[in-house]
């Protein structure tokens, strides 16, 4: 056991730090065009799609270097390395793994250059957690598929350029995981209609997406017909190390401590309240557990062992912390904690109140906690399937 880094790894960390010192001014000093130039610079460094093969514009970055890059970016509170979170997280890796040469040429550079944003068409009105039961239908007609159906809860759909879409090409199957196909569809294709849904925080970043006789060229199929489930599963399994998340959560914990220090409860400093102290300590224990779980799993990967479903452990911690930390801040600050931005007594600009209404984004998107529990119980502990 050691937490030392090699000379090369330390050199890489220093390189990232130096870069951030030179290219990441404090927020108020970031002028117009900052984001554009930031994206160009990190692209030039090869840090966008850092782990992707060099042949496709990545840097073939190793596991530890990836973790270092994420950690330093999170420590510096740097903006994202690209504008398409989903493009970088799973669409790109999915195309690299299953795409044709033409698809790679067409899509990968635009993802890396932040020219297009992607959204993900998985969930349907009656099939959220039960993803494999999808009904959105695609019929092959010559050189194209004709798509009819509906997706819902599609995050980013109101502004995305493309959608990675799961459709059913075969209804006559013995197992529901078969007969599913993955298509890449431009959001401006005739017959695609987006209806944003307002969420409980008042935002409109997810939407219903309707497909009416949408023609999708066969060349936009990712993987073989009927292979869609596999494409999806391996794309979602493209797990990112949680180290960046952990850094952000430690940061949030610090902000929460600042709040506690300036808050009174029943007329006394909240920082002296045993329940408050215990709650914050337990947040810290869970975040630290995520950190060391992550390092243990990273070590396994470095040694060439395949992870099974261990990452669900940190997802469950993340889900509970995501709900509990903001909720704790709102509860602690009483009626002031209820005020949103603009309120005379709003706490920290109403940011806790707002965040306490935003957790489903993280907690439900990508698999609810109960689905994560099923995964752990079935794949790790070997319990029978539901």
């Amino acid at each position, binding site marked *: *056991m*050691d*937490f*030392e*880094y090699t000379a090369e*790894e330390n050199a890489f960390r220093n390189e990232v730090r130096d870069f951030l010192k030179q290219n990441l001014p404090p927020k108020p000093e970031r002028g117009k065009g900052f984001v554009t130039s930031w994206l160009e610079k990190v692209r030039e460094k090869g840090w966008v799609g850092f782990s992707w093969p060099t042949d496709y514009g990545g840097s073939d970055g190793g596991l*530890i270097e990836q*973790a270092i890059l994420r950690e330093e970016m999170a420590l510096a509170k740097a903006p994202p390395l690209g504008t398409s979170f989903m493009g970088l997280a799973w669409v790109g890796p999915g195309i690299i793994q299953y795409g044709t040469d033409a698809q790679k040429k067409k899509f990968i550079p635009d993802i890396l250059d932040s020219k297009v944003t992607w959204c993900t068409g998985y969930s349907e009105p009656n099939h959220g957690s039960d993803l494999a039961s999808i009904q959105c239908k695609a019929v092959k007609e010559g050189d194209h598929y004709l798509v009819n159906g509906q997706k819902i809860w599609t995050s980013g759909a109101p502004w995305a350029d493309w959608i990675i879409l799961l459709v059913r090409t075969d209804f006559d199957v013995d197992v529901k995981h078969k007969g599913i196909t993955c298509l890449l569809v431009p959001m401006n294709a005739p017959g695609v209609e987006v209806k944003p849904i307002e969420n409980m925080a008042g935002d409109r970043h997810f939407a219903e997406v309707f497909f009416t006789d949408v023609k999708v060229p066969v060349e936009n199929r990712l993987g073989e017909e009927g292979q869609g489930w596999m494409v999806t599963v391996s794309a979602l399994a493209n797990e990112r190390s949680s180290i960046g998340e952990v850094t952000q959560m430690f940061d949030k914990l610090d902000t929460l*401590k600042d709040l*506690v*220090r300036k808050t009174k409860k029943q007329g006394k400093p909240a*920082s002296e309240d*045993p329940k408050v*102290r*215990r709650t*914050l*300590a*337990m947040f*810290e*224990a*869970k975040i*630290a*557990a*995520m950190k*060391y*779980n992550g*390092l*243990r799993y*990273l*070590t*396994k990967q*470095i*040694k060439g062992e395949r992870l099974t479903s*261990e990452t669900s*452990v940190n997802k*469950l*911690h993340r889900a509970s912390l995501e709900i509990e930390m903001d909720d704790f801040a709102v509860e602690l600050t009483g009626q002031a904690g209820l005020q949103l931005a603009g309120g005379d007594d709003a706490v920290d600009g109403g940011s806790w109140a707002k965040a306490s209404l935003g957790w489903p984004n993280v907690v439900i998107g990508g698999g609810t906690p*109960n689905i*994560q*529990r*099923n995964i*752990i*119980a*079935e794949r*790790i*502990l*070997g*319990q*029978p*399937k*539901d």
Partner: protein
Amino acid sequence: MNFGFTEEQNMLREQVRRFMREACDIPRVRELMSTDSAFDGNLWKQISDLGWLGLVIPESYGGLGLKWVDLTVVLEETARGLSPLPLASQALASAAILRCGSADHKANWLPTMASGESICTIALYDEPNWISPDAITLTADAVDDGYEITGVKPFVPDALSAQYYLLAVRGPHGLALAAVTRDQLTVKAQPIMDRTKPTGSVSLDRAVIPADFLLPMTEEDLAYLTDVGAVAVTAEMVGAAEAALTMTSEYAKERIQFGKPIGQYQGVKHRLADIYVDVESFKSLLYYAAWTVDDEPTELPRAISLAKGYASDAFARIGIDGVGLHGAIGFTAEYDIQLYLKRSKWARPMYGDSDYHLDRVASLGGL
């Protein structure tokens, strides 16, 4: 960066598992539990021959000169099978001598501890649930030929098997550890619920120890010994909790109700998943804490308080739910899961409960 075990440590783990399987399985543990001391000289000899008693004792004093991470491997695996052998007490006593003893103490005492010829234990606090220098009230008074001690040390782990005792006392010059031999005190077995962790009280009546048998102990030393004590206990909690999870998980696959295995019901499988999350998590925290003992000592207090703070509550709940998920059979004396419930209750207050450790995390974190 490598947060994993070495090949040697993996082999050590296998060795302990084999020993527990072949020499100290649960039927044997149950036999030992029926005695006051739960001690077996033959098994003690075997583990001393394997070198486990000298893991963290330097080679110059007859030990293997390894680290607390190695000791953690052994404690985790012996606790998986609920070994009642006083291995942790011996390790903590040797840690105390290494920390507070003189060169002579180390040279005179450590080699026989490493070889298992002497069996030692250590008792710090006189209050049942108070981690503080103020919770040490037993006194040692200066007399002509050394120090005299009269009083009771109420909570002494492995008191019945030990030959030598390190007892925390208030001496004329402050806190100290008094080295006392078996013939100078009276041991009384206490009927505690976990019989795999035999505990007694010891009373001393004008017992006189030589002047150089009083080892000065600073408050920092006391904090350190409490922290490594918590590392040892939490390592045992990891092994025992994982065993309780395995046992319950296996039972859930086999037990059929309403025509299907109970593990198919989400009420059962989700609880098992949550237990897995907890065990994985306090295991990771514990491994880090064990690493800090030798490699980053300034981080030890925070690291072990995170681990023990998390584990104390989580393991207690695992013990209860382990029994609960078994249903009525889990309640029987015959079934082994109840032994783990008892172990979880034993471990909870040892070297600080979750209230103590989580409050310390808050303090160390600037609150």
